[in-house]
């Protein structure tokens, strides 16, 4: 069970308090109706599936409740960093 640093609580907490939230930094388009079918398909379904450094969302659902972003290596499973939602991609 991983220890995950929650950037809001500012402490490492056990993995079972968290829920995984998929790839990070995929913003919902401001005006979806303006998107072509291909652009909308990309937003809905296309993900990087990175081997190695991966930006992803987690939620401290059984803690402070907040979504946040993380950089995790999908090969080693190690977290490089975590940061608050809305902050610049790292």
């Amino acid at each position, binding site marked *: 069970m991983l220890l995950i640093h929650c950037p*809001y*609580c*500012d402490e490492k907490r056990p993995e*079972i*308090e968290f829920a995984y939230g998929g790839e990070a930094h995929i913003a919902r388009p401001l005006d979806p109706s303006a998107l072509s079918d291909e652009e909308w398909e990309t937003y809905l379904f296309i993900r990087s599936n990175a081997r190695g450094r991966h930006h992803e969302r987690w939620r401290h659902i*059984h*803690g*402070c*409740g*907040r979504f946040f972003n993380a950089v995790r290596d999908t090969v080693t499973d190690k977290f490089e960093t975590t940061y608050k939602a809305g902050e610049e991609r790292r």
Partner: protein
Amino acid sequence: MSSLSVSTSPLPDEPFAADGVRVSRSAALQRYSLRARDPAKLAAVVGRELPGRIGGVTDGIAQLGPDEFLALLPVGTQLPSGEEEPVSVVDISSRAVGITVEGEGAAALIMSGCPLDLDRMAPGQATRTIYETVEMVLVRESETRFHIEVWRSFAPWLWQSLRLSAE
């Protein structure tokens, strides 16, 4: 009809005790979920001081997240709802029930299913966490006394799990 005389709890009246630990149903509480982006506005609406950091507890109000507070107050305490303000005040008095775990073995009993390092949780701290698969809010009232808040329908499971772990 008298409202108090008909209130029901999902937990038994009788506490249980084992080596160094006693588990009992807590007294009824007035509970509020308090939310605001700006805690100062919330403090102004409810007319109370707020903890100022996640995990802190001030006068019965625990800060669970950056914009989330849980007020555990004496029954009958009414907080203003702040309808026009950018805050959320929701009465959740019946949503959860309280379980008191006290004694030298209190921390160890909770750690039978809770993954937190309670050696590192100081008295006066509170947090939402989990016991196996059931979410709870844990308040450390003293070195040897904890208050658990658990949603009503999960309370019997948690009570029985603690009971079995205490044996």
